[in-house]
């Protein structure tokens, strides 16, 4: 350190560092240790639950896609069947249109899965 400016700055910086501005004590190391462990556990939990979360999102998408497919492909049959529940049909006593067994079973199955997923989501939130 031959340069006088450098020497002066070195002294100045050391004096500056010696002026302690700390008004309170530093956090306790045991608290930092504990917090770090808690954070690590939370992160590990998040990592472990990632496949479950992915599966849940996949299930929501799959069920929504199945409903969309069913409603678009069998819309006319479903609409005709729903019309039979209208008051005019009930009053006139017209014969009710019937859904084919596979469509009916698919509707029942999809409805059950939808309710299951909804219940799971509600309870998971709670």
């Amino acid at each position, binding site marked *: 350190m031959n340069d*006088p400016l450098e020497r002066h*700055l070195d002294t100045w*910086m050391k004096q*500056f560092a010696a002026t302690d501005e700390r008004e309170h004590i*530093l956090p306790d*190391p045991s608290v*930092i240790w504990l917090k770090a462990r808690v954070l690590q556990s939370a992160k590990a939990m998040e990592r472990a639950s990632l496949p479950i979360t992915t599966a849940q999102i996949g299930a929501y998408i799959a069920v929504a896609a199945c409903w969309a497919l069913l409603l678009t492909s069998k819309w006319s049959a479903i609409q005709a069947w729903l019309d039979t529940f209208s008051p005019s049909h009930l009053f006139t006593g017209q014969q009710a249109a019937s859904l084919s067994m596979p469509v009916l079973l698919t509707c029942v199955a999809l409805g059950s899965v939808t309710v299951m997923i909804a219940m799971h989501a509600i309870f998971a939130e709670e």
Partner: protein
Amino acid sequence: MNEAQFEAFYRSTAGSVWAYIYRMTGDPSTADDLLQKTFFRFLRSNPAIANEDHLRRYVYKTATNLVFDHFRESKRQRTISETTPREFRTDQNELRHDMARVFAELKPQERALLWLAHVEGSSHAEIGETLNVKEKSVKVMLFRARKKLGDLLSKRGLAPS
């Protein structure tokens, strides 16, 4: 690293790391916050290296990254809303000394360079590792930072005779 080793390491380094962060940010509560984050990251990295100097450099590197992230974040927030008009707090009550005011006029990287070189006594290679810059560049940057600080001190009549 077990809890006892961490405690010993923390007690030997936390004070100087806090001072470094505080001199970089100028805000004691930010320094507290970033100090904790620094040691959380340090523990998350699961340090197993026996060399304390290496661990110390790692802590300084982490603290530096967090300080620069903090500056980037506060800069972004400032562009969204003008609620925090000053990057560096220059409140008379906060900065008790002229020294702090002069130091605050330097850029964050210049502050880091000067602190690491003169207070921590780090070599150019160590500073380069901490600040993610080449050793050769450290020499030039340090020269410029010293010159700037010298000029600032001259302006206030604090330069060497």
